């Protein structure tokens, strides 16, 4: 059975994808710092993606597993704030989780793909990058980094038949957006081609499309849910 690793599985989009991808016939290994509070049916592994030793420790257990097929780098944090008033600790946490954590997981999953000669990596960016969302400069910087990383690593891993793509959802209802005023969210949604709020199901559909074995030549792309 093909196995998919999902980072950020303790809540939000990561939890939703980890739970629902199982129904497409994949075995899911969910990574997070803390166990999900809700009931879950995937294999859970404690891992702090900001810490290379923690990432290495998990991937060393699966490095010879030829069934590893996908990596979904969902783990992410945001903090709406003006840059001038954003503490250094918050800046580091956003960059280390969203960008460095993604890079660490991709780096450590490569040995699995060298052995299996096939794979799918899906990184997560945001619609906020496209519109340069005000008040999210560090978050936007981290996600823009993820998009650039995706394009470059897609070329590097192409000889292994590994595709690397990015999904960029607009604002969806999660803990990340719960404190953002609805008028502000509406303003963002109106800038999408399809001006309807993106749902977790929309992200799941896009994820399944990329994971599909028929999607073997779709790589280096950024899928903006709702369009821009």
């Amino acid at each position, binding site marked *: 059975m093909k196995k998919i690793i999902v980072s950020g599985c303790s809540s939000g989009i990561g939890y939703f994808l980890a739970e629902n991808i199982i129904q497409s016939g994949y075995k899911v290994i969910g990574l997070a710092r803390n166990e999900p509070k809700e009931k879950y049916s995937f294999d859970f592994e404690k891992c702090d993606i900001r810490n290379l030793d923690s990432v290495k420790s998990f991937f060393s257990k699966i490095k010879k597993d030829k069934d590893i097929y996908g990596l979904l780098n969902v783990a992410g944090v945001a903090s709406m704030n003006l840059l001038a008033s954003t503490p250094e600790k918050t800046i580091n946490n956003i960059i280390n989780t969203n960008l460095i954590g993604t890079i660490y997981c991709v*780096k450590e999953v*490569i*040995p699995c793909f*060298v*052995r299996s000669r096939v794979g799918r990596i899906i990184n997560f960016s945001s619609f906020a990058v496209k519109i340069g969302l005000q008040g999210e400069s560090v978050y936007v910087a981290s996600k823009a980094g993820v998009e650039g990383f995706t394009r470059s690593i897609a070329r*590097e*891993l192409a*000889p*292994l038949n590994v595709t690397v793509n990015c999904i960029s959802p607009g604002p969806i209802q999660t803990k990340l957006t719960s404190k953002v005023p609805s008028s502000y969210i509406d303003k963002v949604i109106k800038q999408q081609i399809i001006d309807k709020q993106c749902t977790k199901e929309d992200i799941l559909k896009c994820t399944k499309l990329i994971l599909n074995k028929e999607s073997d030549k779709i790589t280096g792309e950024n899928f903006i849910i709702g369009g821009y």
Partner: protein
Amino acid sequence: MVTKSSVEKFIIKELSRICKEPQDSFSATTQLVGENRSIKSMQLVELLLKMEDYVEENLNSEFNWADNSAMSETWSILRTVGSLAEHVIELNSKK
């Protein structure tokens, strides 16, 4: 018994398989990193994974090739087939 020559032979056999070239295209002086390297970077990664397995299975030791110095052209253990074999033998003697 694992000797430098037996490790070199193993590396050359694997290089031949990975690069789909005859074994006599490679020797102890074949460069693995740097400007004049003979193999592509992803082929090098594949070779190093094989070496990781080899060291684990034959020497019961650990081969860490992803540290900061490994890819440096001048001092790297990955300079040539010979320097890589030498490093593997050193791992064995340090046990």
